[in-house]
């Protein structure tokens, strides 16, 4: 079972990810992959994920983030990306009422927060494919995302190796 405070609403749990990331997360994709890694390591909030264009994605988390904005727990400001599209910056508007963060959760969040978003996307995708039973998730990740893998797959493997070292309630797939 995920380590969560059962009295909290899911919107608060979604907001907690941003609060626990020091109050700021840059990018929707980063937030989704961060939440996914927390989920599969037993440090999440029971959000369900499915495979989408950018790898594991939770519609439920996206909705709860919207709700968290609505309830003024967090803010989301959209910016123009260097490539012409858009990206978001999420900021916590309240501190974490729990105060203390589990060390493993903090480590996973920090690694995801500091990673390049494409590197993180590839690492989370490989983890997702491994959880789905793929026997060679890194090759499959490369096949699915050739343009990104060509430049970022080695970085993704290195990031994953660092994530694997974190002592989590549920271990990450050993890939």
């Amino acid at each position, binding site marked *: 079972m995920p380590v969560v405070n059962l009295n909290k609403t899911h919107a608060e749990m979604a907001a907690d990810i941003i609060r626990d990331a020091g109050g700021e997360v840059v*990018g929707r*994709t980063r937030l989704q992959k961060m939440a996914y890694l927390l989920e599969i390591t037993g440090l999440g909030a029971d959000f369900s994920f499915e495979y989408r264009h950018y790898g594991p994605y939770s519609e439920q988390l*996206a*909705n709860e983030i919207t709700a968290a904005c609505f309830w003024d727990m967090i803010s989301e400001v959209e910016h123009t990306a260097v490539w012409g599209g858009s990206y978001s910056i999420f900021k916590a508007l309240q501190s974490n009422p729990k105060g203390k963060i589990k060390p493993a959760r903090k480590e996973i969040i920090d690694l995801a927060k500091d990673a390049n978003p*494409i590197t993180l996307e590839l690492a989370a995708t490989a983890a997702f494919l491994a959880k789905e039973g793929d026997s060679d998730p890194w090759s499959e990740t490369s096949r699915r995302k050739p*343009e990104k893998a060509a430049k970022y797959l080695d970085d993704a493997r290195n990031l994953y190796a660092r994530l694997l070292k974190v002592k989590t309630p549920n271990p990450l797939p050993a890939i």
Partner: protein
Amino acid sequence: MSFKRQRIRDPLHNLIEFPDDHFHHVMWQVIQTSQFQRLRRIKQLGFSDIVYPGATHSRFGHSLGVFHTARKLMNIVKGHLDRSHDYKDTDANTALAAALVHDLGHGPYSHAFEEVGKRLNLVMANHEKVTDLLIRDGEVSIALKPLGGGFASDVADVIKKAGPSNIYAAVVSSQFDADRLDYMQRDRLMTGTHHGVIDLDWLLSNLEVGKVPYGNDNEPVGEIETFVLGPKAIYAAEAYLLGLFQLYATVYFHKATRGAEKLFTELLAKIIHLVKNGSTHKTGLNENHPLIHFAIDPENLQSILAMDDSVISGAFSMMANAEDRLISDFSKRLRDRKLYKCTDIRECLSQKLEYTPLSKSTRRKNPKALSEHQGAAQSKHSSNDEKGRIEALDRASNNVEKRLMDFATEKQDEIPKILVDKAERSIYKLFEESKGPLNQIMMKLGAGDSKPVDVASISQVINAIAPFKAFRVYIEDSDKKTKATVENIIKEEATRCR
């Protein structure tokens, strides 16, 4: 080797032709597989025919229509890529085959069945998962083999959006994909609704291929080729998205259809629960019924393939005699169209949050009430703009939902007193994660090589289309007490959030 030309008459596209070439011969063989033929017994719109009697069209017809539409889109791609001699038949055929088989894995009553799967965590209730398995391994995979050893896998990759995102894949998955272009027209035709008309010929005539940049968050990845509309298609693009919104409101999320789906979800969930707990005898179904097989072994692909709409609806009369009260009651309701009655909470809250003038008699009897009421109204009008009203509505909706959940838990019975339906669909999602070509409609503002822009940035109409939101509760018609409780909750929360 010679191949035979095949033709199918279709209510939407008229003639769907399969010319006498190798590729179309293989597609014809795919259509002959039992897995594809099964789609004849899965309705495209599930329970919608309880509202629109004509809406009994199947996923079989839709799949053929998607294939037909995909060929039209692919002609646009060919016209563009032929200039640079970059058009690749294999990539095009992969996407066209994907268009044909994209719906293979749907279970009985499609999306309602998926809800059961989500609730009970049944992997095989996910149509994307089943579609993937069927294409990669089995009859369809064998039928596709003449096009190459890895062809079936390539087709499966395109469908799960797993392959390289290119212009060929955009035919199957983009804002202008063949799936949506077919179902919007087909569902409109078969339901008989006159909403949601799209000017397909004009859209296609103005569709070009253009390069747009894409990335992940603030990180650029590169450029990708996708469909881009020409500047003269702005009004057709607006009508296309407005049409989708109207179809959501009038067809896909119709209150009666959703009410039937709610009953169906409860019914199937209960059957699976009983079977898992060794009480198959209480379901009214024979232990050899495909639904019982599925409940016993939900991970088995054959279990899901043995089920379709007719297998389930044909069993309603057997379920009607079930020992279990919920199964007996809900199967009769679905069979005889005796649905729970809908209260549209969002609509009720919306009305209560508006300024309502006092009646003449109230003004006469209580002049003080008049001045208080006017004051409240003035303050409301001065402080509550439209955004504020929507926020109040959302806040009240959330509060009502919470209280209804508490009520449902507190009053838990063998047969639920209320069934709650809350859903939201963004018609034009500007971006889900990173905004990119897959979820944008890009439009060129001028001729030549002008840089495409997001259509929402130039259309106030598209910008103004809010997400479609539904929030309803379904209550058994004779249960006046529950209805009164729900009405009271709505009233209290409307007052609190005003």
